[in-house]
């Protein structure tokens, strides 16, 4: 998180909307207006919204793939090493490297590692857990998990100007626009 760097007086401007359509239109407008340090908040996932705030790819698939590969190689490798190299035992006349019998466990380790990679990847990319966040200072923000939709422009945005930006936001027809304190 941003420390030491002497921070602007307040975090940003938050516009509050009460239906998904408005917030998406607003977000698109803000983005077209050249704002980049923006974010929107909604009670449920809205594909259009994330695109509107300029998010087009998530790296999740890649992360999960890598995790899966690690599990795959690790799983089979472990079984091979332990039953062929480390302590070879004649088990019921089966070959030391009974590869067909090693498949189930390999599969399980693959899935396990993939899933773990995915979940921790998601948390990492989202910067979670993050119990404290400035946006929570927004007065009505509790409704972001109910039926309100919020659009945020951070004060650190290059084009940010307290008054003009606020004006611009109001022009998008929100219920209200509020300052988000640090």
């Amino acid at each position, binding site marked *: *998180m941003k420390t030491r760097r002497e921070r602007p007086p307040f975090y940003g401007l938050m516009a509050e909307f009460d239906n998904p359509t408005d917030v998406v239109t607003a977000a698109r407008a803000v983005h077209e207006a050249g704002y980049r340090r923006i974010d929107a908040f909604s009670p449920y996932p809205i594909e259009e919204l994330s695109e509107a705030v300029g998010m087009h790819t998530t790296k999740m698939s890649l992360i999960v793939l890598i995790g899966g590969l690690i599990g795959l190689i690790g799983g089979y490798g472990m079984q091979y090493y332990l039953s062929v190299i480390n302590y070879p035992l004649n088990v019921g006349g089966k070959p030391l490297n009974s590869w067909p019998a090693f498949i189930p466990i390999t599969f399980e380790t693959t899935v396990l590692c993939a899933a773990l990679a995915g979940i921790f990847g998601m948390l990492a990319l989202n910067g979670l857990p993050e119990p*404290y966040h400035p946006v929570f200072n927004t007065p009505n923000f509790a409704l972001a998990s109910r039926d309100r939709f919020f659009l945020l422009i951070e004060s650190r945005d290059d084009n940010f100007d307290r008054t003009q930006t606020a004006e611009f936001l109001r022009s998008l027809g929100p219920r209200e626009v509020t300052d988000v304190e640090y």
Partner: protein
Amino acid sequence: MPQIFHRSTNTLAKLSIFGGLFILAFAAWALAEINRSSWNTGAYVERQQPVQFSHKHHVGDDGIDCRYCHTSVETSASAGMPPTKTCMNCHSQIWSDSPYLEPVRTSWRENRPIEWTRVHDLPDYAYFNHSIHVNKGVGCSTCHGRVDQMPIVYQYASLQMEWCLECHRDPARYLRPREQVFNMEWRPENKSAAELQEGRELFAKYHVRHKAILQSCSTCHR
């Protein structure tokens, strides 16, 4: 809407995840170490005996051969513990009135055995046979350490299965000529290429069985 948490909790929250992982890893490592520590294996722990018998003195200084007391080491599974009579062979003449030896004399007089504390105690399901090891060129000191330097005998090796396997999987590293088996000074392990070469020759010469047999379960467990 007021904040529920303070800023600092962000760092804490993130740390706690890694911390958790770290603690788990540490616990695993610690367990493994404890398992192998002498606290668990009993290695390097000197055991008090009813008679303060010093191997250092008898073997190191007097140079008495192991087999003088441990008579059956070449013929039987058990190396054999000397009967009181063995002690009395000498100590009826020398040190015949030393207070240290009173328990021995009592034993002899009252026909009551001396109760020694067991130092090397294998699990009952592991069947170790001294004679075969000695006959195949495994030296006393390989497993028992420099007994000739121990005033009070302690367990030299961990006696854990992985320790047994270390040799059973590659005996050549530890074999020595039969005539050197009871030689305490002999090198504990064949390290240099030449030594290993000798080990391999002895391996063949003494018809030591191959790895597959030596690490078969039935070799040690009945």
